[in-house]
């Protein structure tokens, strides 16, 4: 017995000594596929944990099922819903689901763990019959209000003769369009459904919506018309975020937005906090979630994770406030081989694991459910990025190695922007190398200050940190970050 213990100890020592130069984040996070019930088409629309630690999920074919991680049992809670794409648990007996036609509260009155009431909280928005009018959410604020986001219709299909809600011909032209009320909007809906407030406009395909505990509403939107590349917005009441068709549902609006100049339209919009450069990091971002302080999920508590459909990837977003506005950078978080693509919905479980549900909807994607567990340790990563008046300050999770004497040759910075226009997407415009004028390593060697020859507001700064290693010789795992410089700080 004693010799066995020593033997195990020896293995542990030898493993830690053999720490290699190349680490992957997958070494720190293990990914497990969850077995799904036979016959289920596991395209995940929404997921949330119940107070007792079971996971409630909704699926493309209309089922709401509950998974018990203790027993691995699945149980049917509700069925027959129309394309549910979001779910929040209110209590063990009440689940709210966003389905295409309504925000619905599923109630189990008799405690048999099957919903016996499907009650409409609100159907106070239009449907044209166009397949692309997906409905997302709900997210909830601390007062129990619901926030839902409504996809625009697509030119890939028309509208039906019979629509629900008022038809507005001004919203009918365009690639993606809003011909019935509040397509392309976020709506705030009171807990009882009696008050519906149009909250913000300018969205195209706002699949990811999340109210953070601090009261910040995050929404992701997908590259397309009026979105040169995919985006993360910090959404505030009454503001407009750029996709133009939804403007027709503003009070007193009486013109086809497409007849206005791009300059005029540009004046109306708020910019995104973070751009996700197309093909370089994400093509179709999904649900954002903040890593809570109280879970053991690595060194990035308080930062945002964002799912991605087309690549087997979860992204990490590092935000800061500059001149009163939120902006920041995105970087790859996890794209180890085991991670699925189609990462659509994410939620932290009671044990601090991240649960990820996938979908495809015939687009690029996948199906299924994965659980990501943090194994401990400190991956060598970029911890935070802050804009300065003359460059960027980049912090790392571990001190940099002394080999970094020649950092100047190991860091590449590019800048570019994306056009705001009605065409689908945008190339990277005015893409140029940015000269680094100087690099300063902090005394604790955990922070680099880059001095750049310019800091142009409205540009993405695409920073690659080649050959940057930690003090024990470990390479930076994810070495390319993208900072959206809306505002340049004065200091």
């Amino acid at each position, binding site marked *: 017995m004693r010799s066995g213990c020593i033997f195990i100890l020896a293995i542990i020592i030898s493993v830690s000594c053999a720490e290699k130069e190349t680490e992957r984040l997958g070494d720190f996070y293990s990914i497990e596929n969850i077995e*799904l*019930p*036979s*016959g*289920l*088409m596991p395209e995940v629309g929404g997921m949330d944990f119940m107070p007792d630690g079971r996971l409630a999920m909704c699926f*493309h*074919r*209309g*089922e709401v*099922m509950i998974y018990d991680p203790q027993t691995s049992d*699945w149980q*049917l809670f509700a*069925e*027959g*819903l*129309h*394309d549910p794409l979001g779910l929040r648990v209110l209590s063990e007996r009440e689940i709210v689901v966003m*389905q*295409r*036609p*309504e925000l*619905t*509260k599923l109630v189990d009155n008799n405690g048999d763990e099957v*919903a*016996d*009431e*499907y*009650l*409409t909280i609100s*159907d106070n928005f239009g*449907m*044209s*019959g166009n*397949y*692309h009018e997906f409905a997302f959410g709900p997210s909830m604020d601390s007062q129990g209000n619901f926030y839902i986001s409504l996809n625009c219709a697509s030119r890939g*299909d028309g509208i*039906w003769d*019979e*629509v*629900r809600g008022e038809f507005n011909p001004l919203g009918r032209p365009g690639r993606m369009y809003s011909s019935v009320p509040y397509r392309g909007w976020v709506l705030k809906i009171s807990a009882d459904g009696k008050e519906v407030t149009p909250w913000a406009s300018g969205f195209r395909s706002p699949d990811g919506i999340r109210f953070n505990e601090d009261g910040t509403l995050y929404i992701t939107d997908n590259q397309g018309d009026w979105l040169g590349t995919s985006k993360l917005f910090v959404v505030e009441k009454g503001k407009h975020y750029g996709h133009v068709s939804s403007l027709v549902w503003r009070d007193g609006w009486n013109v086809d937005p497409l007849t206005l100049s791009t300059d005029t339209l540009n004046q109306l919009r708020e910019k995104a906090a973070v751009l996700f450069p197309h093909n370089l990091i994400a093509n179709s971002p999904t649900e954002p979630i903040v890593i809570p302080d109280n879970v053991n999920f690595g060194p990035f508590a308080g930062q945002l994770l964002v799912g991605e459909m087309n690549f087997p990837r979860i992204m990490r977003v590092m935000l800061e406030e500059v001149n009163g506005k939120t902006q920041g950078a995105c970087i790859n978080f996890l794209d180890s081989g085991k991670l699925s693509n189609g990462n659509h919905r994410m939620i932290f479980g009671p044990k601090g694991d991240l649960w990820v549900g996938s979908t495809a*909807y*015939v*687009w690029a994607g996948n199906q299924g459910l994965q659980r990501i567990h943090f194994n401990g340790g400190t991956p060598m990563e970029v911890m935070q990025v802050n804009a300065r008046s003359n460059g960027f300050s980049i912090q790392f999770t571990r001190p940099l190695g002394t080999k970094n004497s020649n950092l100047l040759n190991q860091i590449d910075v590019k800048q570019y922007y994306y056009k705001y226009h009605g065409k689908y997407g945008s190339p990277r415009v005015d893409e140029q190398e940015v000269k680094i004028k100087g690099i300063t390593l902090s005394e604790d060697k955990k922070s680099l200050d880059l001095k750049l020859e310019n800091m142009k507001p409205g540009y993405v700064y695409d920073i690659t940190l080649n050959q940057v290693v930690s003090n024990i010789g470990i390479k930076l795992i994810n070495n390319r970050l993208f900072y959206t410089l809306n505002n340049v700080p004065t200091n």
Partner: protein
Amino acid sequence: MRKPKNFNLFLLMLFSWLLIGFDNPEVFTTIEINAISGMQYNVVRFKVKPGEKIKLTLHNVDEMTHNWLLTAPGKREEIVSKALKLPDGEANDYIPEDENLLAAIPLLNPDQSYTITFTAPQEEGVYPYVCTYPGHGSVMYGAMYVTNNLLPPLASDKNIPEQRRESDDQIDEKVSGHPYKMVLPSMYRAFMPQSGPASIAVGMLGDISYCWDAGKCRFRYAWEGGFLNMERTWRGKGKERADIVGVIFYREEVDYPIKIGEKKLVPKVSFRGYRMKNRYPTFLYTLNNIEVEERILPTFDQPGLQRIFQLSNLEDDIFIEIPPKNDISIKVNKGEQTNNGFRLSAKEAENFIITIQELEKVESL
């Protein structure tokens, strides 16, 4: 002289087209059948009326090759063995020349679909359909019922494969597309044909189904012979409408069937959801300030359904204005009949039942 491949099929289709004409697609009853894994059709039986015009599509969603042949009553096995004996079977899609062959869809590779149109025979009876690919014919078949009557219980139906004779109209999860057996009654929220975009479909016992429009809070139509085929709507991005299995026998084509007060005003509606009991929904909605509960159940004496209403906060009389239909009996158990419907006092309207049934056919000699 050797006839061209599928000559019979060609003749059949030509004949059907001549009969039906090209210009009015509305008159077809659409039947969608999938060939699925385990050598079976997902639809093992369906019902049509004598002389009904049918547009039938076979989707091969299996990994093997399949065809679909409709035969005269009792002729399935004969056609299957004749197909096997064809000298050049595969080239002829295993479709033999035979007077008892009524319609056919050629061999389809995986992921192929094929649509034919034909007219149901005038003679009532059970018309088998079958896959004649070698080895499939003894298990892969189903039955087209040409009848005005109800179908026999599935569990004791000798005209369908034994493994599909399940009680309570259950369809197991391999076929249902869900992680559970499909049991009638059942319901889907779905994009439905000829209804608004927020619709509900309910399949009831007795193979009577209906579509209820949650956007307009009203009944749209009822059909008999099956429920829904969700395959096409599930396969894409949700763009396609669900396919009805069976025949629509009743449509409620009216601006709004319940009108309030002497002025017969069309009420403002609001959909409040539904409550499930014994797997049947009770719809909850409001008409102006009037709260409505509407529960819909099948009738078994004649194909049809009952709509059981409870209204509260009523002050005025209500008028139920449903246009009369040929072959359909519409009854309300309260109030007085008017020239275009029924008038119920506020008191009577607290509880009433509308019964909608197919009229019993009188056999002519």
